[in-house]
Every structure is written in C-alpha cells, then in structure tokens.
C-alpha cells in the first residue's frame, strides 16, 4: 500500500536535490577555508584582469593626459596613485567575496543538515525504527 508520509518525504528530498543539489552539494565537498580561499584567488584574478583592461583603455584614450601628469608629478607620483586605487578596489572586492562566500557556505551547510535529517527520517520509515521521541513515549 502507498505510504503518503514516505512519498511526501521522498518528493521533498527530490525537489531539494533538483533545486539546490548542484550548488549545495558542490560546496559541501570543501572545508570552509578551502572554499573561501579558492574564491578569493579567483576574485583576485578577475579583479586584476579588469584593472589591467581598464588601465590599458585609459592609457589608449588618455595618453596625452597621462604623459602630461607624468611630466608634472613624475613616474612615482602617478604610479603610486594607480597602485593605491588598485589596492583599495582589490581590498573592497576581496572583502565582498569573503562575505558572500561565507554566507553561501553557511547556507549550504544549513541546507545539508536539513537534507540529512530528512534522509534519516526516511531511512527510519523504511527500517521501521521509531523516532527517539516516539520510543520514549
């Protein structure tokens, strides 16, 4: 005979797997530190690539302005300013990355716990083992 409780639980689990499976289970393959460091490195590469692209564009379109400033302030003045801008932007972007990745990891962990609890409940239903609370009663 069909067991409505089991079917509901299995459907719940299947829906959770379909919606969140790819993101949640992938995250759970990593320790938190490994997951965040991986993303920080990727963010560093992405940000640096963007900064290089923007600098190349600025150099191409504003060559005369750039050379005029180098004449006025010298190489060190201009490059220090570029360095400070790059560093400040990088720091902000890495902080945002850290914050987003930490929140995602936490959410994925919570999701996995919920998933595991439902799996346990389903397994108990198949094995016929009562829940601890029911057994105590």
């Amino acid at each position, binding site marked *: 005979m069909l067991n409505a409780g089991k079917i509901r639980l299995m459907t719940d689990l299947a829906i959770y797997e379909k919606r969140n499976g790819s993101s949640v289970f992938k995250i759970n393959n990593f320790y938190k530190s490994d997951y965040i460091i991986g993303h920080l490195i990727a963010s560093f590469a992405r940000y640096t690539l963007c900064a290089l692209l923007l600098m190349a564009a600025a150099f191409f*379109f504003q060559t005369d302005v750039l050379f005029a400033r180098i004449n006025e302030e010298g190489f060190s003045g201009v490059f220090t300013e570029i360095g400070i801008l790059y560093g400040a932007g990088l720091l902000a972007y890495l902080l945002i990355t850290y914050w*987003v990745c930490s929140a995602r990891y936490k959410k994925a962990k919570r999701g996995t716990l919920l998933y595991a609890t439902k799996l346990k409940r389903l397994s108990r239903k198949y094995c016929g083992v009562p829940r601890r609370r029911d057994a105590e009663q």
Partner: protein
Amino acid sequence: MTGLLLIRDKLRAFYSDFDVYIRPLLRLVFALLCLLSINGYMGYFPLLQRMPVVLLGALFCMLMPLGMTAFVAAVFVIGNMAKVSLVSAMVAAVWAVVVGLLYLGFRPKQGWVLAVIPLCFMWKIPFVLPVVLGLAAGAAAVVPAVCAIPFWFLMQYVHENAEAFQNAVDFNVLTQEFAALAGGVFRNSYMYLMILMFVLCILCVSVIKRLSMDHAWTVAVICGIALEAVLGVGGGLMLGGGDLLWDLLGLAVSLGIALLYEYLFFAVDYSGTEKLQFEDDDYYYYVKAVPKIKPYDEDERRE
C-alpha cells in the same frame, strides 16, 4: 478578484506540468524582445538586422541560462555601435567585460536584470522596474541596476549623436571622440539621478516588504512609488532629463504591476492573523502567522 487567484493557481499547475518546455520558450521570447528592440533602436549594422542572425542569437539564448541573454544583447549593442563609432564600441566592450567578470562571476542568476533595464529605458518605461525588482529580486538587484544604467546612457548617447561620429581609425579622432563621449555620458547628472533612484527604491522596497507589520508589501510599494515620483519624475523635471508624460505613465504602470504582483504572490488575510508564543530548550519563539487567501474552500476541494 478571486478569479485572478484561480487563474494564478491554474497557471502554476500548468507551469509545473510543462516547465521543461515553458522555460526555454520564455527565454526565447525574452531574447527576441531584447534583440529586436536593440535592432529597432540602433540598427546600424545590416548583418545584425537580418532575421536569421537575430533568430540564431535568440536560439542560442534559449539553450543557455537566462543570464546569457545579457551577454548576447551586449554583443548586438557593441556590433551596432562599432558601425557608428569605434570608440563607443570599445568603451561598451570594456564595460561589458568588466561587469561580466566582476559581477557575473558572483551571481550569474540575476544576469537578466542587466538586459531588462536597458530594455525598459528603450521602451521609455524605466519607472516600472525599481519597485518590481525590489519585490521580486530583493536588495541584490541593486548591483546589476548600477551596472546596467550607465550602459544604457552610453547607448542613448551613441543613438543621439550617431551622425556626429566620424568613425575614423585615427588616433587623434579617437581621443577626441572619447573625450566627447566621456563628457556626454559620465557627466550626465540625469544618469546619476537614475542610479540613485534605482538604488534607494530597490533598497527601500526590499527592506520594508520584509518587515513583520501588517500590509508590509503594500506599504513597500507605496514608498517605492513615492520615491520614484520625487526622485525620478521631480528630479528629472529639474534636470531636464525626463519626459513628464512618459514618466507619469511609467509610474502608473509600475503601481499597477507592483500591486498585481503583490496580489498574486502575497495574497494574505490580515484579519486572520494569529500570534503564538512558545519555547524549547534553547529559544523563546514569538510567531506571527498570517493565513494565505485561497480562491477555493479547502474542505470542498478535498471532497
């Protein structure tokens, strides 16, 4: 009004039965709308105007995740710009790559917002978006909004000054055109006003709708519309950037869509609110439960 809820439930059931076909179809329609609107607005490149090319782009978007539509739309915009002004095409390409790397690397699921914002500006109804984005996408929609608005103003500048560009591959001409472009786009105070309006409105709506007070969604919509009216319409009139008739029409449409969205996705009966308080070993719980409005009687449905 319960008729609307019945239609909603039927649509939900239909969607859950045929979502495998409906999703790609919606992506195809959205991509076609984007690409045809871009070609209608800045159809400078004959190759991109041809229907097979548009269909090919739309079919590609249909097979890819929704965020990819923004990428294909950007390719169409850059292609069209390149026919008029190499400088603006280069600036647009740099902007698209930077946004793609910095933003889409994080949150590709909201890439569609990048495509939908220029689309609404093109249709002269930008005021429809902030409130609906605040309700549907939440505070995270601020980032794609801030990225997409300058891109739209770049498109608008190129469209309005298409005849002034020489499109010569000469270094001096390129730098002069870049200076004019930078002045025209990045010193446009109306653009900053629009960015401010989108940011404040999305944040305001997404924060208020999460409050536990009664009628939070309605209050959020009203606050969002008020902000749009003051900042968008009022500020636009002061800066001479908006079109009063279209702006008011956009506000009215925005209000209608937002209220419809609220009715369809947050139909609750505050008169049946129940407040509960209980505790377990670790916490005290203060729970407020608001019943959803159902278009049918549950008991009758079971029978």
